């Protein structure tokens, strides 16, 4: 029995006069205009103080309007399709909060309602790693999602994002993190400093594996797994600030390295810094967050600046001093791009990515908003 009827019966309701506000319909649930605008971003709240209750918030980086949110389980991931109005959230639940049966899911949301379209059960060993974009990879035609597993043996789950079903699990022993490299190809980095490239057959099983020579000196100067991609090239950055491009065609392979900082800057120990320290614009601009006075172990310290490069010319275009020290960065992909910086105050600063000016700050977007995803 709804109490509301009871309440209404107990209170006389006047007939609305002309100036009187009308009664309003219930239920009433907002929708989101589609397609999403170029400057709408998804902010990932890791929720470290309540890890089992994380969230993704959709915010307009221009107006700072909060458009909606998706709740997620612990150590969640998100991938946004551009060819289909869907979002794929990787998440882990226990049936009784912090205990009980574990369920791992890729949960599919539509962009107009942020409502669940499908819950795809996957093997209950998806990697539970602090927010990291390379925990998952949406392959280039967006019909396959690769989800890293870690227990601590490593494998990947292959998901059919069109059919909304789990296809297969592929072992990647000794390797971890996944990077899209084609319609049916991804690669992963390995503990010996090599990369492993995997081609899927049409069904989703591994059709071919190609292992590179070791090219990362993990002990001396490892490449961070927090990379960014421009067209056919992934850009990885080493702790010391070397850029390692990896071309994905015809088979992923490392090409010539170059340095972010000049010798003087390297002497001042300007190094990449922050959590997710790379972002890339499709026009060829590579963004890397940096800090001076680096030391052994400084690689997760917050960043003081964002440096902007022409990745092709390997030349720096701009230094953007951050108004507030930064943790993670992202850039929108349009022609008037915004640089988003998740800052150390738990807010997101919005900069003009071309001029480097701070435009405004988005606040109240979760307890520990550690990562930003563009949506276009």
């Amino acid at each position, binding site marked *: 029995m709804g109490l509301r009827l009871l309440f209404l019966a107990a209170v006389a309701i006047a007939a*609305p006069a002309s100036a009187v506000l009308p009664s*309003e319909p219930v*239920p009433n649930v907002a929708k989101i205009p589609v397609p999403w605008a170029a400057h709408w971003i998804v902010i990932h709240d890791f929720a470290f103080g309540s890890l089992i209750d994380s969230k993704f918030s959709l915010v307009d980086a221009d107006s700072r309007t909060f458009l909606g949110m998706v709740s997620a389980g612990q150590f969640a991931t998100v991938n946004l399709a551009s060819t289909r109005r869907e979002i794929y959230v990787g998440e882990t639940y226990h049936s009784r909060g912090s205990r009980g049966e574990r369920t791992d899911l890729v949960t599919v949301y539509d962009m107009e309602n942020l409502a669940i379209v499908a819950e795809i059960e996957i093997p209950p060993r998806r990697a539970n790693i602090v927010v990291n974009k390379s925990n998952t990879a949406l392959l280039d035609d967006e019909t396959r999602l690769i989800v890293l597993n870690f227990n601590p043996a490593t494998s990947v789950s292959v998901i059919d994002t069109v059919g909304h079903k789990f296809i297969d699990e592929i072992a990647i022993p000794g390797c971890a993190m996944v990077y899209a490299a084609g319609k049916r190809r991804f690669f992963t980095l390995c503990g010996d400093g090599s990369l492993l490239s995997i081609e899927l057959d049409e069904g989703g099983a591994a059709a071919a594996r190609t292992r590179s020579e070791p090219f990362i000196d993990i002990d001396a100067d490892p490449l961070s797994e927090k990379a960014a991609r421009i067209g056919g090239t992934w850009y990885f950055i080493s702790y010391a600030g070397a850029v390692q491009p990896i071309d994905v065609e015809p088979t992923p392979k490392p090409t010539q390295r170059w340095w972010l900082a000049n010798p003087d800057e390297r002497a001042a120990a300007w190094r990449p810094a922050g959590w997710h320290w790379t972002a890339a614009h499709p026009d060829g601009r590579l963004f890397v967050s940096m800090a001076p006075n680096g030391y052994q172990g400084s690689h997760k310290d917050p960043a003081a600046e964002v440096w902007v490069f022409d990745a092709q010319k390997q030349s720096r275009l701009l230094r953007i001093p951050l108004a507030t020290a930064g943790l993670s960065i992202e850039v929108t992909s349009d022609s008037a791009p915004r640089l988003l910086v998740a800052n150390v105050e738990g807010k997101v600063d919005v900069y003009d990515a071309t001029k480097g000016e701070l435009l405004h700050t988005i606040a109240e977007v979760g307890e520990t908003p550690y990562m930003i995803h563009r949506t276009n």
Partner: protein
Amino acid sequence: MRWLDRIVERSLRDVARRSSRRSFLSLVGASIVGGATLPLLPVARASTAAPATGERAVPAQSTGNPGDPGDPTQCDYWRYCGIDGFLCSCCGGTQNACPPGTEMSPLTWVGTCENPADGLRYIISYNDCCGKSSCGRCLCNRNEEDKPVYRPHANNDINWCMGTQSHVYNCSTAVILGTAN
């Protein structure tokens, strides 16, 4: 659902974040938010989001109707005289709509609030929105006419996410049902 805190409270999780290394603090020191005790009014609070620009933490909204005055993202909006919870206007909904993907509870608590534009008292239904976890934005608690739980329809401590698929609370709306005599 309402909340007891009429005033700003401190999240202890802030305190939980520490560092043993000082090397970076010199860099970020000026922008770290601290645990010191400060007098703080709502107006001041709103301006702390971006000291550089003086902007409010949450952008202002308007109903667009002079007959429905005020800012639905603010706790002093007239309809919220009996609300307790996160304002859906700050969460992707509006003062009378739930955020996308949530479900509006069919069961509610009801209050009457005076509209300053016409001086009339309106019957307001505080429908909770359900199925996603705490929105966390724009917490607002006002207890005009609030009664104890044993008069539930006039109490705002209850999670009204009932009769919905999920009983998890996301935020609260304030829907006009009509005018009260």
